[in-house]
């Protein structure tokens, strides 16, 4: 088997295995939360499910290494798959809970009257209604794992454990082999087109939303409660094992002048990217028919590493353009698909509810924004602004391609420290983590939306 075909095989194998393990676990956590939704810990777990999305990937992986490093060899295929399962099952649970909300409450009441067991309730009531969402979330996970960069970069790498994205990056930056890198870029393009074709044929990506959101039925199932504790463990343990030892490493980290320079660089970029991405998202959502589907699918189908490689080739021919420009473009590719998804549902709901009234009043675009959209969309707008801040501040992928060698940016500095000064890296991780959460919440505090759920 050639190196290229091995990389392709490894890419697909780890994505398939990760998907098959992540989905059942996420569904079990989701079902446990739905069935015990009035129980305090279940409510708290639901609020925390979105937390991994704004946790910097490198910090999560650092926690994963600390947590599992003594139990098994995390720098392996099983390490990559386990990390994918740990970081993605809360997302699957969140996705599935939103699908669960669409099951009519009457069906649960009927099931109770008919004395259906838990198995038959899943079989007759839940599975038929969740099948589409299950397929969708499986496809999303498969695409995400196929394009996995940071996890594979840290836990894999080398010729034996590399995905297409990482192999593309390594060809350019470690092997200095642009020709091979170009070959991988072609393969990545082919893979992207195949995914896009499969998505189009199977209509796999969730394109719609429903206004028919119902409350959860009145269910209780004590036997499922352990899965809620498992959900807590998956979300919080990787963070705790970073936070606790990092407190002692914090003073060492704070004395590093490079940390402050990187901090200022990352913060500046984040403060630029947050409003820019929020503005672009709003514009794109308003013109949903032109940009909607492609933009929402972008991150899944076109990995930022691929965009980074293309821009890297471009930068070789245009050396006068600042690397920060390329950095900004790659980060926009990372942020926009997420923020688009957050704003799209509420905006469409608003449009379908008040659209005819607004149209009949003849409001101008600005009046519509000031009188209708801003007051009613303040919360999701704060969320996308916070997402823009946090995702930009914590991102590693874009920095891997375009970090300045002297002032690398906080995530890139953390990556360097993880291999050279592990203890100091814990302090840097804590700063990164704290700032990400702070930046996410900042717009909610300023705009007084008080969203502490991390679920948008």
């Amino acid at each position, binding site marked *: 088997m050639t190196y290229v075909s091995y990389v392709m095989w490894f890419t697909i194998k780890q994505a398939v295995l990760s998907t098959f393990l992540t989905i059942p676990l996420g569904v079990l956590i989701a079902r446990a939360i739905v069935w015990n939704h009035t129980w305090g810990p279940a409510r708290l777990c639901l609020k925390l499910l979105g937390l991994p999305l704004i946790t910097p990937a490198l910090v999560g992986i650092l926690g994963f290494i600390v947590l599992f490093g003594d139990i098994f060899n995390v720098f392996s295929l099983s390490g990559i798959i386990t990390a994918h399962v740990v970081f993605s099952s809360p997302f699957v649970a969140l996705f599935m809970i939103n699908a669960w909300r669409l099951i*009519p409450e*009457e*069906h649960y*009441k*009927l099931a*109770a*009257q*008919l*004395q*259906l*067991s838990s198995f*038959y309730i899943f079989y*007759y*009531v839940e599975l*038929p209604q969740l099948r589409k969402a299950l397929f969708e979330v499986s496809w999303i996970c498969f695409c995400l794992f196929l394009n996995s960069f940071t996890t594979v970069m840290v836990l894999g790498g080398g010729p034996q454990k590399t995905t297409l994205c990482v192999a593309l990056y390594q060809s350019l930056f470690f092997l200095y082999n642009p020709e091979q890198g170009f070959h991988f870029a072609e393969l990545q393009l082919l893979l992207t087109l195949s995914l896009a074709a499969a998505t189009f044929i199977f209509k796999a990506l969730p394109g719609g939303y429903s206004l028919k959101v119902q409350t959860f039925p*009145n269910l209780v199932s004590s036997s499922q409660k352990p899965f809620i504790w498992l959900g807590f463990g998956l979300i919080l343990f990787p963070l705790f094992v970073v936070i606790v030892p990092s407190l002692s490493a914090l003073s060492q980290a704070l004395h590093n002048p490079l940390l402050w320079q990187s901090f200022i660089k990352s913060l500046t970029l984040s403060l630029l990217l947050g409003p820019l991405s929020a503005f672009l998202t709003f514009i794109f959502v308003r013109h949903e028919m032109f940009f909607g589907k492609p933009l929402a699918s972008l991150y899944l189908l076109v990995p930022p590493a691929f965009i980074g490689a293309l821009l890297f080739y471009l930068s070789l021919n245009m050396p006068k353009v600042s690397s920060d420009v390329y950095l900004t473009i790659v980060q926009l590719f990372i942020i926009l698909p997420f923020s688009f998804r957050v704003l799209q549902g509420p905006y469409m709901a608003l449009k379908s509810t008040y659209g005819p009234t607004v149209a009949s009043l003849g409001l101008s675009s600005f009046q519509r924004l000031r009188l209708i959209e801003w007051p009613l969309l303040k919360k999701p707008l704060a969320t996308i602004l916070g997402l823009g801040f946090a995702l930009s501040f914590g991102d590693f992928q874009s920095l891997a391609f375009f970090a300045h060698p002297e002032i690398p940016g906080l995530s890139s500095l953390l990556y360097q420290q993880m291999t050279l000064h592990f203890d100091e890296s814990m302090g840097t991780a804590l700063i990164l983590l704290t700032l990400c959460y702070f930046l996410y919440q900042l717009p909610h505090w300023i705009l007084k939306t008080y969203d502490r759920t991390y679920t948008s």
Partner: protein
Amino acid sequence: MTGLTLHNLFFQREDFVLDLSLTLPKGSKTLLVGASGAGKSTLLSLISGFLTPQMGTILWRETDLTRLPPQNRPLTLLFQDNNLFPHLRVRENVGLGLKPSLNFNKEEKDRLYFILEKVGISSLMDRYPHELSGGERQRAALARSLLRKTPLLLLDEPLGPLGPGLRKEMLVLLAAIAEEFNLTLLLTTHQPDEAAYLADRMVFLEGGKIVEEGDPTSLLTEPSHPFLKAYLGC
């Protein structure tokens, strides 16, 4: 003979309070009337066990149902919509009233066909819910409740989505079925005049309390309480 007894039933949620006592004789057909938010659906949820009262008791004859889970109560609750599972055929939806595995022996199959025949949808048993009219869907739900052999049938605005013709047809069927199977009926509706000839008793609910009850004909023609007068537009 006493059927259902609600004794000092008290339920509070946020700013809504339900506080009432009510007795339904066995085999009676009672119409529960009231404006939106009066507490009709809450009362049915309390009787069927999907809500638990803070005080009071719910008795079916001598059995205390107050703390029993929904599946152990001798009743069936039919809703305005979503009574059928959309992915199951009519015979499967109805058959769930017999056993969840849907593996029927000869005797069970005969009983299933008998009930489908009884409600007039035996020719539709291989169809899916979306292939039925609103009235046919309600007949299928009714058939399932008959299979369960529960003596008390609660209907939460089951005629809501039906047109006038189908409403009348369904009411006639309900009356006949209730008579034949000796069911005790409690039915909520927004159209008391239409449903009145099915019922032998009418209860008017306002703000979680019973403000008037009695014979439907006299209540409809000579309402005494101002709320009922306003509701009927008298």
